[in-house]
């Protein structure tokens, strides 16, 4: 077993964990980060993309609202390129308590959320698809944030400063001797090799999984309630502003325009298993109904995909409720030396994407205290790589760039404008043969055709560049098709159903992928029934002549 030594070991590659790595690297600490899967594959990569103004919490959770206000301002500066400045609206629909609007305005004033009431007619001029029966409207500085871009930027920035970022490394043991945690052993999911990482401080940033990781260090009672929510991406910018229902937060009351889609969210169901990705039909129906209330005609638009995310809700000692929306959304930093008498281990969990930077800052402050060093935080002012100009992302920016280069470039994924050169670079950089890893980097296969055209192309390029064996390439192709289908089938209707059938036609009808050597159906029976047909058949027999060579 090989061994690494470092100042800080971060377990968990979500926004918080990578945020900790970026923060610690900026302070000059040596960092190793491990995740059992890819970066941002858990909760971070499974949210709607809303950068909160604080408005959503203004009445219910003033502390959370204040944190959002501050972090919204900071992230607009340091992560400018990851953010589209859509602005936000809170609107009172006929189904909302009309008394909430005044409480909302007062809550915003008290917590510092910049909020301006506008005439409904004015709101409708800006967002003509909104329900014309809205009675109140407030503008707030909500925005949409691309979480993958944010996480990759921090990861690259940390790596440039010496951090070692190791996705697909699952922690199998936490090294604890007596009352001291000295690091962990992680297993490389690809090679199966184990790696010992000796660390002065270990940070458990595993969100909804934090209780399990703490338990591996022999620490009991870190209870994180996983709250599962579904989100549906609609294949259009049905709105260009984040639209919230002006009511106490509930299911299906936000639509976030992000990239070329709009995302409606979300539900909130307690689950015992953070890896539970069930999509109940009734939740899909509820989302579509709520969407229809905000944007009449919502159901006639094309639904691309549904997915679930699991919020990590740290259980407060006093709350014993399983209604997860009532548990605080605040984050929790546990210093296990103070809490359990175990030195060298911190747990950071709870919270929300908008406050990831603050969570990382508080965590690395605690790391420095444990190390007895004074190193001031710099993430408040240091822009992420790519965000130095301070300019926000604009819809259409990529298209403009692509059009300029189109003559000499080949698009592999037309929906998401992924050129061949970029795909080849990503294959080289990630070293991954998993097309889903490439997708998280480049958005490959995330558009309307959901991989219908790019899956074959990308597999071909992967095979050619990486010199994979046929069976490995086939496995990548089949796994990506299955992965895309996972989010499509529970919300499949209308034009997206036609698209799905076309994709099936291409892969099963034209390419015959189910007849590849590794295809699931033929895996067992292929030898028995397949080989006979391949040999001995004359082919030219029958009703028409065949030309001789």
């Amino acid at each position, binding site marked *: 077993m090989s061994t690494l030594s470092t100042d800080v070991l971060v377990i968990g590659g979500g926004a918080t964990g990578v945020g900790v790595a970026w923060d610690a690297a900026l302070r000059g600490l040596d960092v190793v980060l491990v995740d059992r899967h890819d970066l941002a594959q858990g909760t971070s990569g499974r949210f709607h993309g809303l950068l909160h103004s604080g408005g959503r919490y203004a009445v219910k959770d003033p502390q959370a609202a204040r944190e959002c206000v501050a972090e919204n301002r900071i992230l607009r500066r340091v992560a400018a390129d990851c953010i589209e400045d859509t602005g936000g609206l809170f609107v009172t629909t006929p189904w909302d308590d009309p008394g909430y609007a005044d409480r909302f305005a007062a809550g915003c004033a008290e917590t510092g959320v910049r909020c301006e009431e506008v005439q409904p007619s004015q709101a409708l001029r800006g967002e003509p698809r909104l329900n014309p029966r809205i009675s109140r409207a407030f503008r707030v500085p909500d925005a949409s944030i691309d979480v993958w871009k944010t996480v990759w930027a921090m990861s690259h920035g940390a790596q440039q400063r010496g951090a070692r970022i190791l996705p697909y490394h699952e922690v199998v043991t936490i090294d604890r001797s007596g009352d001291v945690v000295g690091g962990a052993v992680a297993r490389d999911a690809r090679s199966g090799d184990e790696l010992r990482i000796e660390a002065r401080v270990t940070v458990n940033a595993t969100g909804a999984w934090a209780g399990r990781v703490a338990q591996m260090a022999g620490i009991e009672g870190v209870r994180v309630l996983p709250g599962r929510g579904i989100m549906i991406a609609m294949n259009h910018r049905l709105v260009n502003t984040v639209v919230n229902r002006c009511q106490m937060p509930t299911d299906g009351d936000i639509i976030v325009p992000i990239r070329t889609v709009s995302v409606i969210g979300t539900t909130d169901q307690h689950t015992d298993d953070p890896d539970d990705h069930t999509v109940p039909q009734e939740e899909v129906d509820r989302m579509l109904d709520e969407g229809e209330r905000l944007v009449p005609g919502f159901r006639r638009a094309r639904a691309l995909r549904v997915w679930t995310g699991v919020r990590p809700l740290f259980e407060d000692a006093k709350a014993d409720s399983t209604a997860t929306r009532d548990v605080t959304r605040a984050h929790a930093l546990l210093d296990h030396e103070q809490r359990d008498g175990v030195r060298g281990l911190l747990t950071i969990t709870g919270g929300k994407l908008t406050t990831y930077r603050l969570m990382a800052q508080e965590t690395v402050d605690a790391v420095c205290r444990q190390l007895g060093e004074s190193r001031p935080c710099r993430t408040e002012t240091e822009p992420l790589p790519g965000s130095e100009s301070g300019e926000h992302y604009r819809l259409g920016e990529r298209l403009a760039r692509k059009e300029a280069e189109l003559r000499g470039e080949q698009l592999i994924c037309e929906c998401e404008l992924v050129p061949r050169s970029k795909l080849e670079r990503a294959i080289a950089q990630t070293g991954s043969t998993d097309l889903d890893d490439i997708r998280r980097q480049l958005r490959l296969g995330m558009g309307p055709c959901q991989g219908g055209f790019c899956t074959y192309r990308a597999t071909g390029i992967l095979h050619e560049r990486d010199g994979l064996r046929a069976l490995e390439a086939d496995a990548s192709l089949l796994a990506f098709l299955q992965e895309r289908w996972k989010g499509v089938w529970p919300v499949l209707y209308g034009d997206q159903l036609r698209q799905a059938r076309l994709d099936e036609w291409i892969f099963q009808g034209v390419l*015959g992928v189910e007849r*590849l050597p590794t295809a699931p159906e033929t895996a067992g029976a292929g030898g*028995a029934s397949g080989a006979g047909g391949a040999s001995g058949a004359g082919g030219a027999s029958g009703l028409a002549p065949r030309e001789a060579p």
Partner: protein
Amino acid sequence: MTGPGPALDGPLHFDAVVIGAGTAGMTAAIRLAQSGARVCVVAKGVGSTHLAAGTIDVLGRIDGEERVTEPGAALERLIASRPDHPYALLGSGVVADSLSWFFETAAASSPRGYEYVGGLERNMLLPTAVGALRPSTLVPITMAAGEASALHRAAIVGTHALRDFHPSLCAANLREAGIEARPVFLELELERADMSALGIARRFDDPAWRALFCAQLSPALRSEDHVGLPAMLGLRDPHAALADLERRLGRRVFEIPTLPPSVPGMRLYEILRRALRSAGGRLVIGAEVVAAERHGERIAAVATRAAGRESHYAAPWFVLASGGLASGGIELDSSWRTSERVLGLPLRGVPDAGEPRFVPDFFAEQPLGRVGVAVDPQLRAEGAENVVVAGAALPGQAPWREGCGEGVALASGYRAAQVIVRESGAGAPAGARAT
């Protein structure tokens, strides 16, 4: 259904109106026109041909037989085990007759020498662009040399400009199947970094381009006796292109179908279009049926909207060949209601409320997959006695899983015309066989 609004001109009268210009609709229309009927095809757009491989797949897989070797014999087993399958309604005789008819028609309407080969006795096993071996019953002559049993040493040729074909992956999978295949990349002089097979196919119509292509390819070939290319050997005269390449390269050459738009599919469409025209039928593309005039159990006329104006088509008979879920002929809305879109006809094969429509496994059979318009044994739609249904709109089939899409389309289009000719008392069409 709502009745059509007033049109500027009166309705156009035909003996039969066919809705849909895929293989099924075109077959029905050509047969009707050949029998002397005045027939018109109206379609929202070109049909399935442009998406498919351009082969005629009659039957590639049935329960318990992963790869059907003898489609004629397997057809009988399918008919016995699946009484709801379109083939069970049609009978194997109609399938054989429709294929014979297709040979004659294709031969008469194809560019010189571009014929289909194969037969119900044995499926041909041809490489796909991913390098899997797919069974087809009839294939264009340009694909025939790719038959797996005769394929020993093959060069699989592509160019980086064509993103829809990847020789190294194709060759690697063929090697898994025991074929000695080697990828060859050519850097062709093309005007763009990004060409479709269709764009390159237009170049192959030019003999000078073919000479340049072969001059570049020849030195890259070794001991291979076969050369596989993506399906792009020209649109106007593909057989001449094939013969030219085989002569210049001194090897057998074959096409491999790849992502749409499908060049061999477009050739097939062109063959059917010419056959319809020479039989005197009409074809209106870009004319979506937007309304129907209905009297009780009969459809009197349909209205189409094209170029901003409505046209009415009246006929004693209609053929519904508007396809299934893929073409939009059958729809599922966000409230999970399934409907036939053109005439609002009743469906069969819709899972009961509360039952799954789809399942989490992409490669499993999807419960909604076999949905179609409810028909009687004569293919007549339930509740509309003068509407005959053909092609993917028929229930009980899984076109891609079973590899039966074109076979069902041909046989049911053929049968639809037969039913109409018989029922309308117009006498047997010229050259028709008794079934």
